[in-house]
């Protein structure tokens, strides 16, 4: 089962996902990067049905790029999140995309933002969010630990604690995870656990 988690700080967003790609009872690969860049300052953390996951993300990313070329300016994270939600909602009553995602981004004018989106086109903007079975363990932990003035180091330790919790308590916990951060300088890989 996919695991996704996100933490928003005062000037950064941190996202984490597991790195297994699974096909029925077989683990196809253990180094699948599910934190996909949409542009220089936005990431999607994607989970769900294998084909849908990649197809949908590539479709959104292509539209975001086209917008930037046509209009000479990037979309804000809020606009990308709402556009994504709109696409999920339109497809919902025809042929739904079975993917849940977290959208994190950093904008000049409003700083970091983090959105949780599920395959039914529900969307929430949150300071902490998670997706998958692992999220049940991680959300209550993050609720306790999150503060408005988190530093990057605090958030990283919070995320590591969350991963430890998932590994020890979830019966089908994935073995490996990747953590990335977005701030005013763009996207960086922080850790691979």
């Amino acid at each position, binding site marked *: 089962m996919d695991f996704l988690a996100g933490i928003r700080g005062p000037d950064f967003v941190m996202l984490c996902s597991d790195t297994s790609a699974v096909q029925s009872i077989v683990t196809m690969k253990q180094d699948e990067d599910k934190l996909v860049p949409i542009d220089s300052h936005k990431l999607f953390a994607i989970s769900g049905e294998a084909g849908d996951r990649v197809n949908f993300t590539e479709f959104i990313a292509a539209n975001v790029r086209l917008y930037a070329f046509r*209009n000479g*300016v990037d*979309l*804000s994270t*809020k*606009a990308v999140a*709402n*556009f994504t939600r*709109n696409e999920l909602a339109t497809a919902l009553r025809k042929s739904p995309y079975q993917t849940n995602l977290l959208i994190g981004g950093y904008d000049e*004018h409003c700083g970091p933002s983090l959105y949780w989106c599920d395959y039914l086109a529900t969307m929430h903007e949150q300071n902490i969010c998670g997706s998958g079975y692992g999220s049940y363990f991680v959300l209550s932990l993050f609720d306790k630990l999150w503060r408005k003035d988190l530093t990057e180091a605090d958030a990283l330790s919070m995320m590591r604690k969350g991963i430890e919790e998932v590994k020890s308590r979830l019966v089908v916990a994935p073995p490996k995870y990747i953590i990335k951060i977005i701030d005013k300088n763009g996207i960086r890989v922080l850790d691979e656990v």
Partner: protein
Amino acid sequence: MSRRYDSRTTIFSPEGRLHQVEYAMEAISNAGSCVGILTKEGIVLGAEKRITSKLLDTKAVGVRREKMYKIDDHVACAVAGITSDANILINTCRLQSQRYLLTYQEPIPVDQLVRGICDSKQGYTQFGGMRPFGVSLLYAGWDRLQGFQLYQSDPSGNYGGWKATSIGANHSSATGILQSDYEEDMTLDQAMKLVIKVLSKTMDSTTLSPEKVEISTLTMQNEVVNFKIYEDSDLRPILDAVNSEVLKEKETAS
């Protein structure tokens, strides 16, 4: 000789011109003029009303405004040309603006709105066999990326961003006055006086009254975009002030 190439909108003449588009622009130069000036404090739009009659029921829906229309909370426009054509375009503007808002939950950047309308206007000059719209528009808007902007579009689907411009009857003499009198750091009040002065010089009548003129401004009030169309009561003192200034200028000149 070029008469042969008039009736089909979507073909070139031998001299490489699109006659229907040019005739559409001809139609607009007979319509009531519009003037727009961009300042750091906002945009002033002024227009000459052609439909003036004391029999007009100004409270009836659809008659209240002849020239100025609000497209969205942050964009407004003034039209010159065939009013019924203008209504269709304004509706399209409003639709496009709301579609963008629905998808992105953010207001449409002004230049994208103008480009969208102009792309659809261009379609009528290239395929379909329908005549072009006989309307030019002045768009006044504000967005987070570029601040206050003033655009002008014409039936060919061309558009440009302007600091000051005019469309409709006598637009070339109006633009001439704007070229000599426009200053980079004008305040909104100075711009309004200039708009009214330009209108009084290009309209048939020398003294302006609220029945003949529509004035509006697009500004920021408390961090919210505010589009104000001046009512008669607000307009009268401003017009009187400019009228007396213009009169004084004439007296000192003669």
